[in-house]
């Protein structure tokens, strides 16, 4: 577990909801600077897997390690739950529905965790939030509430909010699926620039162009298992499994 360039390692993750087994032994590691796209039909377990990585869903069993600090899970109980908050603060998360705090302005959304998790002084947090919102192109929208922003703008605030924690890796859970088609581009552009900066990202997506052009690795989920993985080039030019062939044929 102490490979130096491995940021995040998930080992043999199982997850059941009642009698339905959604994840059937998934192992995945993310190395530094890697951009991993997770593809799969709905119901294949890809979002559940992503949510397991920062314990928004507690896996039924498996091991998750961020920077070599492992949390083992057996029978749906993590062995050292105190680690979970630390792991969460090291992994950024961007949601499909943005999940901005609607009662706080854009800049307050970004400052919140800096002040209350990182214990940063307010004025420093404000400076940092300002530069992050500039980074995602929202310097003129800082003091607006989420209800006053378009979906694409909200998602960019959410990305800035995740970046504020200086996470070791950022998880994206279908970040463009809730957006109007004309707003998808602005969010993908920001994500692309993050990839170019060398950020480690794990992206559950339906954007084939993003998976093909931006990611360094593509993972295809099918019925709770990893059916196929590889570089985008080999995956898209030469799909090996029938399931993945069918999946890309549909799109």
């Amino acid at each position, binding site marked *: 577990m102490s490979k130096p360039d491995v940021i995040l390692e998930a080992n043999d993750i199982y997850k059941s909801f009642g009698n339905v087994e959604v994840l059937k032994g998934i192992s995945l590691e993310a190395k530094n600077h890697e951009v991993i796209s997770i593809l799969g039909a709905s119901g294949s377990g890809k979002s559940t897997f992503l949510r397991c990585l*920062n*314990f*928004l869903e507690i896996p039924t069993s498996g091991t998750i390690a961020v920077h070599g600090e492992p949390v083992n899970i057996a029978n749906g109980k993590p062995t050292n739950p105190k680690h979970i*908050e*630390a792991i*969460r*603060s*090291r*992994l*950024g*998360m961007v*949601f499909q*529905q*943005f*999940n*901005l*705090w*609607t*009662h*706080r*302005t854009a800049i307050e959304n970004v400052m*919140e*965790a800096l002040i*209350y*998790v990182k214990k940063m002084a307010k004025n420093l947090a404000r400076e940092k939030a300002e530069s992050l919102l500039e980074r995602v192109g929202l310097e003129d929208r800082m003091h*607006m*509430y*989420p*209800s*006053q*922003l*378009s979906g694409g703008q909200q998602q960019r605030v*959410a990305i800035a*909010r*995740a970046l504020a*924690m200086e996470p070791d890796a950022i998880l994206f859970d279908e970040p463009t699926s809730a957006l109007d088609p004309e707003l998808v581009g602005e969010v993908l552009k920001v994500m692309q620039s993050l990839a170019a900066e060398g950020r480690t990202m794990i992206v559950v997506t339906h954007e084939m162009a993003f998976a093909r052009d931006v990611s360094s690795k593509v993972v295809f989920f099918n019925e709770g298992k990893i059916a196929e993985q590889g570089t985008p080039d080999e995956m898209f030019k030469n799909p090996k499994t029938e399931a993945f062939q069918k999946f890309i044929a549909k799109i």
Partner: protein
Amino acid sequence: MEPFEIIIEYWPKLLDGALITLKLTFLCTLAAAIISPCLALFRVNASPIAQAPLRLYISFIRGTPILAQLFLIYYGSGQFRPLLQEWGLWSFFRDPFNCALLTFILNTTAYQTEILRGGIMGVNLGEIEAGKALGMNKMRILQRIVFPHAYRIAWPALGNEIILMMKASALASVVTIFDILGRTRQIFSRTFDFSIYLWAAILYICITAIFVLIWRQAELRLNKHILPSDHLISADDSFQSTTVKRLRDE
């Protein structure tokens, strides 16, 4: 006596009663404001077995008349006088004001707990998850995300409950407390002038009106994040702006 003569003569007494009414309402609301968030959280999170006693209490309070609850505590405590004396609680229960206050606290706490439970359950789960995902601990999530939303959602119903409680506090006059109604009855028994009841009604209406004004200002503040902006009115803003317009017009 003319209606104005009676108010000129007796307004200090009526005002005195108003202070008692306000004191009762304020104290029981304050106590409920401290207790009910904890109980509401318990109602949302605890297992059905663990919260059975709490549900029993709430069902009892909601299912019986507040006057009966007041009699139960005021006259009932007399029955247990030796026991209460032994515990050193008799001096508390001997005072009718305390009995009334305790009754009203028990009563309004039950209602406010249920109102706030609804508010907590109305909080968008995604916003809570966003807090978790950033590594916020449970207390922070409650303090920064859950309760701000829960109070915003519950605010109109809470205001309603406080108004109902203020008026219900008139029942205290039955157990010899000189609140507004107590004073009014006292004045009436001396003057046999019915107009004092009208003055009492005006006083109640004034208190309610002032309270509603303050409460609505607070509500507008709590809702400021869904006020329509001047810069950008998009399609999904139209629903929210009608809500806000309605709030303003009322």
